[in-house]
C-alpha cells in the first residue's frame, strides 16, 4: 500500500524563483502535496532567531543549521505542524514565526518549536540554491 509509481514521479524536485518575494514576505508552494513555506526574513527576524539560547529550546538546533549559509535571509520549512499535521499560520503567535491553530503550537522565526504540544521543529525539506534567486526543492 505504499505510494505507487506515478505518485513518486509526481514528487520529483521542483524549482522555485525567489526574486518576486520581497523582504518580510513569504510564499507557500506545494511539493509532494505538502505546503512549503519560503520566507524572506528581515534583519530583525534573523537576529531574533540567532539570539536565543539554543540549549533552552525544546528541540535544540541553531538557526545556522536550519538555513543555507550565505542565504541567511531565506527560511524554507515544511508547513506541517509536527504535532498532528495541521498547517501553521505564518506571521502569527508570540514569536513572530508560525502559529498552529489546531492545538496551539508556536514556532519562532526559524521554524523552531517554542510552545505547545508539538515535539519537534518544523522540518526543513531537502533543497539547494541553483542560483542566488532560485532554489530547487527535493
Amino acid at each position, binding site marked *: *500500500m505504499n505510494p505507487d509509481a506515478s505518485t513518486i514521479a509526481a514528487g520529483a524536485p521542483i524549482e522555485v524563483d525567489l526574486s518576486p518575494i520581497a523582504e518580510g514576505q513569504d510564499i507557500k508552494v506545494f511539493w509532494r502535496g505538502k505546503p512549503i513555506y519560503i520566507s524572506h526574513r528581515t534583519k530583525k527576524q534573523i537576529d531574533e532567531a540567532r539570539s536565543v539560547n539554543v540549549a533552552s529550546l525544546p528541540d535544540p538546533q541553531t538557526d545556522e543549521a536550519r538555513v543555507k549559509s550565505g542565504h541567511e535571509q531565506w527560511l524554507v520549512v515544511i508547513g506541517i505542524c509536527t504535532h498532528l499535521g495541521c*498547517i501553521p499560520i505564518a506571521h502569527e503567535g508570540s514569536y513572530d514565526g508560525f502559529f498552529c*491553530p489546531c492545538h496551539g503550537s508556536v514556532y519562532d522565526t526559524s521554524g523552531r518549536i517554542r510552545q505547545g504540544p508539538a515535539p519537534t521543529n518544523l522540518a526543513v525539506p531537502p533543497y539547494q540554491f541553483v542560483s542566488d534567486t532560485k532554489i530547487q526543492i527535493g
Partner: protein
Amino acid sequence: MSGPSDYQPSNPALQWIERRLPIFGLIHSSFVAYPTPRNLNYWWTFGAILSFMLGMQILTGVILAMHYTPNADLAFKSVELIVRDVNYGWLLRNMHAVGASMFFVAVYVHMFRGLYYGSYKEPREVLWILGVIIYLLMMATGFMGYVLPWGQMSFWGATVITNLFSAVPYVGESIVTLLWGGYAVGNPTLNRFFSLHYLLPFVIAGVVVLHVWALHVAGQNNPDGVEPKTEKDTVPFTPHATIKDMFGVACFLLLYAWFIFYMPNYLGDADNYIPANPGVTPPHIVPEWYYLPFYAILRSIPDKLAGVIAMFGAIIILCFLPWLDTAKTRSSKYRPLAKQFFWIFVAVCILLGYLGAQPPEGIYVIAGRILTFCYFAYFLIVLPLLARIEKPRPVPNSISDAVLAKTGSRSTPMVSTAIVLALAGSLFAGSIDSAKAAEGSDKPPGNTWSFSGPFGKFDRGALQRGLKVYKEVCASCHGLSFVAFRNLAEPGGPGYSVAQAAAFASEYKVKDGPNDAGDMFERPGRPADYFPSPFANEQAARAANGGAAPPDLSLITKARSYKRGFPWFIFDVFTQYQEQGPDYVAALLQGYEDKVPEGVTLPEGSYYNKYFPGHAIKMPKPISDGQVTYDDGSPTTVAQYSKDVTTFLMWTAEPHMEARKRLGFQVFVFLIVFAGLMYFTKKKVWADSH
C-alpha cells in the same frame, strides 16, 4: 447455537432441508426456544437495537456506494448530487450519516449497561472482549466514513488522526506514508478509506455473530446478576424477548427519525459543507462527537507519544476489565458503593466529551487532565479497591425470587426511560458546532424564517425575489455551481413553470464543446445546465478579489454557523433550531458599518463587519437600499433583500427540505402508532410472566 436441537419442521420440504442442513433447528434453538431470563429490563433491548442499526447502515451504505465516486476531485460533488438528484438520495444520506451517530448512542448505552450490571464477569469475559473489538472496529469504520464526503472536516480529521501513528518511535513516519499511499492525505488515501469503509462493516457483522454465539453459550446476564436455575427463571425468547425488542427498536426509531427528518445537520459540522482544501486548516478541528472523550484525553497530555498511548489505552483498558474488577457480586444493584462510582464515571465520560469540543486552552486543559486521571483511576484504582473493601447487599436466591419481591414497586421502567433520555441528550454535548463564527464577533440576531420548525415551508415570493437579488447582485462574484436551471421548476422550489425555467436559462451564455472543428463555443443555456460561475477557477477568483476568493453560495447557509454554547445546544435538540447558517448570512449582509470602532485597524482592502469573525471582511458592502427593484411591492430595503436572498440560499443548500419535513411527519405518525401497538402486544404477552 446451544447444542443440537430436537426441533422438527412440520412442512415436508423444510424437513428435507433440515435433514441435510439443520438450519431451522439452529434458528429455532437460538431465537425461538432460547431461554431468556425473565427479569430483563429495557436496557437489554439495546442488543437488538444495535443489530438493527448495523443492518440499516449496511443497507443504506450499499445503496449510497452505487452513487458515490471515491475521487478527491469528485467525491464532494458526488455526495451533493446524491442529495439533490438521486431519488430519495437525501433520505439515504441522512439515514446513513445520522445512523452512524445513533449506532454510537446505542453502543454507549449497551456498554454502560454491561458495566453497571457486571456483564463482563465470569463466564462472560470472551463475550465482553468481543464486544470491545466490535467497538474498535466501529470507531475505525465511523472515522473512515466521515472522510468520504471530502469536506474540510473530513480532510483535516483524516490528517490529524492518521498523524497519530507518527508518534510511534522509529517506524511512525513509514506507517503514516503507508496509510496515506502518498506524501500527504490525498486521492490514494480517499480510495483506500472507501475500500476499507465498505469492508469493515462486514467484518463487524462477522464478529457480531461470534458475540451472539458467545452470548448464547454463556447465557444472558440479568439485572440481578444471578444465573437462571430453574424453568421458572426464564421465558422463551419468542415471543417474549422478540416483542419487547420490537418495542425497544420502535422507540429508538422515534429518536432516529427526529434527527433524520428534522435535524439532519445537528450532529455534523458546518465546515464539512466546505470542500476539502489542503492549503487551509479550519480554525477549530473537532472530531465526531463519539470520539470526543478520547480526543480530550489525547489533548490533555502534553507529550505527543504519551498522549497517543493514553488515548488508545483508554479503550484497550476495557479488555482487562474482567480481571480488574474481581468482586463476586455482579450487579451494581447490590453494590452500594460501586453504584455511586459508576454514575460518577458516567459523568466523567460526558464531561470529557464536552471538553473534547472546547479549544485547548486555560481552564479546559486543567479540567481535561483531572478528568483523564479520574477516567483511568476508575479502572485501575476504584474497581480493584472496591472488590476488596465493599460489603455488597445480599443477592436474591433466584431470578423468580427477585421478580416476586419486586412486583410491589414497578416504577423502574419509567425511571430508566428518563435516564436514557437524559443520557442521550447529554451525550450530544460534544456535537457543538465549530466555533467558526464565534471568536471576536457578535452573535447574529435570530430571525423568524418561514422554513423553520417541523412544518416549515419556503415562502415562494421570497424565493423568487431572492433569485432576482442573487442574479443582479451576488452573481457577479459568487457562483452557484450545484444548482441547475431545471431546479427552479421543481416542487418545493421557487415555483416557476418548466417554460419559465427554460426561458430563464436561455438568458445565460453557457460554454460547450468541443464541436466538430474541435473548438469550444458558447450557446444559450438549457434547463439541464448549471448556473455558470463568474470566474474560471479559484485562482482567477482570488486574483480578481484582492486575495480572498468569493465562496460558492450553493451550500453557504449550511457551511456557516456560529457557536450556540451551553446550554443552548441542548435546547436546540428539542426546539429543532438549526437556522444558525441563515441567521449568520442574513446578519452578515446587514452587518457593515462605515464607522470603524476605535482601537480596530483594518488591513488594506478590508471592510468592517460586525458579524464576520475577526471583523475584517474583504467583500465590500454588497447591497444598498433600492438597488434591486421588486415587482410585487415588497420594500426595497437592505433588510428585506437580506432576508429574501438568504431564504433563496437556504433553498439552494437544501432543495428537498419541504419533502423531508413532509415525509418526516408521516413517518412520525406511523412510528407512534407502531410503537403503541408493540407496547400493548408486549403487555399482553408478558401478562403472566411478571
